């Protein structure tokens, strides 16, 4: 164990020490396996959220034509209202992203059960809004009192003739947001994806974008580039996404996966059910965007598409080159720490590298080992009491809609060239000597900042001001501090500009008052004034 890591762990009582040392490693050191997706110890100031946050907050919330009703006391729905920057334009006058719908359970609902209230709430929502679909997300007490939200959903679906689905994503399930992603994925694959009539057509460049939540408009920027090349986006899961598009997701020829952690289940399940392959992409950073576009073109193996891809790349890269260089000069030589959810801590490293910024430490809030070490370790991950509580669906081929996209020969050849149904994880891309950390907590944040002296700490709102009070610039990589988009080529410039702004703002020079940094220049001669 490196001295730096040892120093941090020395802050802990024995039991915490034993736990936390498994969640930290140094790239290139002896320890290769990182503990992840396991419980946070009670009392530790973690940044993690809950299952509900992952299910409703992340995956279901961005769907703009769905009335997502949160069944529970008011808070959970309130906190997930307009707080994640999953932008949506709304279509046909429907944009539920601006709304917060909840049963606002009261004491009597907890005592006597909330089924009646939920049933009525659905009726009121359908009458008021005529949504394309209704989704019900339950919060902690609902699981305990045993309201059967699935039965309520089935009943309502019959009554109103629209899709009504239920998600038992009580906050206590799993160990972080991650369990909630899985629950949302399970619901979407079993009840929604594939319900439409659209057919798969050979020779079309139809794709779904999975795990892109349109934070700060990222999805729109990615969509712009893909359309320019000639792709047809069937559905986005789920940024500015729509129920009405999700139902035809099975008709895509390829799935591209941006955030592996939150949506890989759907990627895998669609492969089994519909034969749709997925390719891991990363539209953050110039090099990775270029590589992702080329990988996609390779999958379709169409000469015109490959050529168009190269033209668009050349055009877009040329467009941003001067601006990017201007900010690279400012940022070159800086050091960064990244602590974000389940993909951004990896995705931004390449972009930072292009700007001359070294990542000295990176970690995920709710990742699994495969997000760190690559999908090859999945078979070796041991189940525990918490992970067993999240249902693993048994998926079968859809007899009508399943269609192999590639021959075995094509598949084998392509697997060697592009990340086909594969994610290599974060660690492989990190420089030797850098630190990898899972579920970074408060004291570790404070101490690592002192020790590693990064110039920029990329994280979220809960630790942003901790870093800044310590004099280190912090930029939120969940919300982009209300800037963005950061994806695609133009996004690189937006990002570089925002970070450079933070580094160069004159305010940093005022932290220490002048009378504290300069010796007193004036004095009086002994004897006083003449």
């Amino acid at each position, binding site marked *: 164990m490196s001295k730096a890591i040892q120093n941090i762990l020395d802050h802990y009582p024995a039991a915490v020490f034993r736990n936390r040392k498994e969640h930290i490693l140094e790239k290139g050191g002896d320890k290769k396996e990182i503990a992840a997706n396991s419980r946070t110890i009670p009392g530790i100031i973690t940044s993690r959220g*809950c299952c509900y946050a992952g299910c409703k907050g992340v995956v279901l919330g961005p769907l703009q034509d769905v009335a997502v009703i949160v069944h529970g006391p008011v808070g959970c729905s309130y906190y997930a209202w307009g707080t994640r920057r999953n932008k949506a334009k709304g279509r046909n006058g429907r944009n539920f992203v601006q709304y917060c719908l909840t049963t606002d359970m009261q004491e009597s609902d*907890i005592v006597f059960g909330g089924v009646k209230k939920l049933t009525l709430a659905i009726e009121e929502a359908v009458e008021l809004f005529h949504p394309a679909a209704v989704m019900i997300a339950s919060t902690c007490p609902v699981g305990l009192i045993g309201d059967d939200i699935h039965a309520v959903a089935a009943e309502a679906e019959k009554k109103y003739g629209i899709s009504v689905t239920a998600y038992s994503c009580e906050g*206590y399930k799993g160990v972080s947001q991650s369990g909630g992603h899985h629950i949302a994925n399970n619901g979407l694959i079993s009840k929604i994806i594939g319900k439409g009539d659209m057919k798969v057509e050979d020779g079309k460049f139809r794709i779904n974008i999975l795990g892109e939540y349109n934070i700060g408009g990222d999805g729109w920027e990615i969509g712009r580039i893909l359309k320019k090349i000639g792709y047809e986006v069937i559905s986005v899961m789920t940024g500015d996404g729509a129920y009405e598009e999700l139902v035809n997701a099975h008709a895509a020829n390829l799935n591209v996966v941006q955030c592996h952690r939150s949506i890989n289940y759907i990627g895998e399940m669609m492969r089994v059910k519909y034969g749709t392959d997925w390719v891991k992409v990363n539209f953050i950073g110039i090099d990775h965007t270029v590589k992702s576009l080329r990988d996609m073109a390779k999958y379709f193996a169409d000469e015109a598409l490959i050529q168009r891809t190269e033209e668009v790349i050349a055009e877009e890269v040329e467009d941003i080159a001067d601006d990017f260089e201007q900010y690279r000069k400012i940022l070159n030589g800086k050091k960064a720490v990244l602590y974000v959810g389940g993909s951004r801590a990896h995705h931004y490293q390449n972009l930072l590298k292009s700007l001359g910024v070294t990542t000295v430490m990176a970690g995920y809030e709710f990742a699994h080992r495969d997000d760190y070490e690559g999908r090859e370790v999945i078979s070796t991950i041991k189940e525990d009491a918490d992970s067993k509580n999240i249902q693993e669906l048994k998926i079968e081929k859809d007899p009508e809609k399943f269609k192999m996209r590639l021959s075995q020969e094509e598949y084998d050849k392509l697997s060697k060239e592009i990340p086909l149904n594969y994610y290599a994880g974060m660690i492989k891309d990190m420089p030797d000597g850098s630190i990898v950390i899972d579920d970074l907590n408060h004291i570790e944040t404070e101490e690592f900042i002192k020790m590693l002296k990064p110039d920029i700490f990329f994280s979220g709102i809960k630790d942003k001001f901790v870093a800044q009070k310590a004099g280190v610039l912090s930029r939120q990589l969940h919300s982009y501090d209300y800037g963005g988009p950061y994806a695609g080529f133009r996004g690189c410039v937006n990002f570089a500009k925002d970070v450079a702004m933070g580094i160069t703002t004159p305010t940093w020079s005022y932290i220490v008052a002048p009378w504290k940094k300069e010796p007193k220049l004036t004095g009086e001669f002994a004897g006083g004034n003449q």
Partner: protein
Amino acid sequence: MLELTPKKYKERQALRINPAKTCQPVGAMYAALGIRQCMPHSHGSQGCCSYHRTFLTRHFKEPVIATTSSFTEGASVFGGGSNLKTAVKNIFEIYKPRVIAVHTTCLSETIGDDIPTIIGQLENVPEGKFVIHTNTPSYVGSHITGYSNMVKSMISYFSKNTGQPNGKICVISGFVNPGDMKEIKRILKIMNIDFIMFPDTSGVLDSPMTGNFEMYPKGGTTVEEIQDAGNCSDVLGLGAAAASAGVRQLNKKCKVKEHILELPIGIEATDAFISKLSEISGKDVPEEIETERGQLVDIMIDAHPYYDKKTAAIYGDPDTVLGLAEFCFSLGMQPKYLITGTPDPSFETKGKELFDKFGAKDGFVKHAADLFELHQRLKNDKVDLLIGGTHGKQIARAENIPFLRMGFPILDRYVHPYMPMVGYRGAMRILELMLNVLMDKREADTADEDFELVM
């Protein structure tokens, strides 16, 4: 914007849309941050603590430190006792607070965790340190209830009447910003009154940039002060919804004479506050305060053409909404809609009293209401000004109504937590901000030839 909101209003029985309240625990967390060296602890799932810290951080733009019992499914089945015990041990060892202030969540309340018993079984509480708790079921009341419950618990755990009067007045601050708490203290100091005030988040959630992070900034009321509150002669609660539970508890437990006042927003409520301070302390109101009052009245008269008879809709927390409404009335404005999400029938009674007092005939006041309903009503009867926290900005945009951000939460602006809305100085600030939005709107709607240099 908000295109799904129909103009036609229909009463709803079950569906809450765009709430004007949140849940108890976040209020308890905020109150606990007003104790010096206190670690608020959320006894429930991680998500609660994460959401609450996020929410408060977004309002204050400051680090909000709190811990969680990190419930898993196992804890939800077998009870959270062992999680809480582990948490307390780790918190004292790692974060070294003086006090751990536990609040519950809908999860631990539904399970029925008996917190006092668990606290009684704790073996690792260091000498001179404390674990206190309050029950904050999210399915009862609102964040205001949670704040009020935590304040009451501070008294239950700490305050003692030792039989030796301390010659001080106790003030229980309402649910307000650090800037307000600082202003209340400033007024008390000018009045030359010895006081104990809690909770006090000034110095905690408005801490300066020094280049060093402090987990426990210098502010907050000390445990000793809260203990000594039991020896005060009088206790003043500022705002009935947020402060009366604490006031009553201090009266019940320590026989401190109780006074429940309005949150001192605007001229009348501040007059009442100052008069009460003068009456209790037997001290004359100093010239400095009279000057501030006079300045406020001067500004009110100077600027009245720009706000006179303007109609307003005000939403938010009960004490704040009533305070702002009264101030608007005293300016000669016409508040028409008063809405709180907090379930509190007395809000309606007080709102109606205000309408009656100022002769307003068609005023609408409702507790346990939501912003969706307010929006529907405004679609049918537009007002000149919307006042409340950030969540109303969509309505303001949809209906093109000038919008004054005031109250809690304000997630989309800066500086506000540092500045007061209470007292005469606070009233001046409200007036300045209000005039800015009203006059900006007037200018935005003005033709070039009518565009004035001087106003």
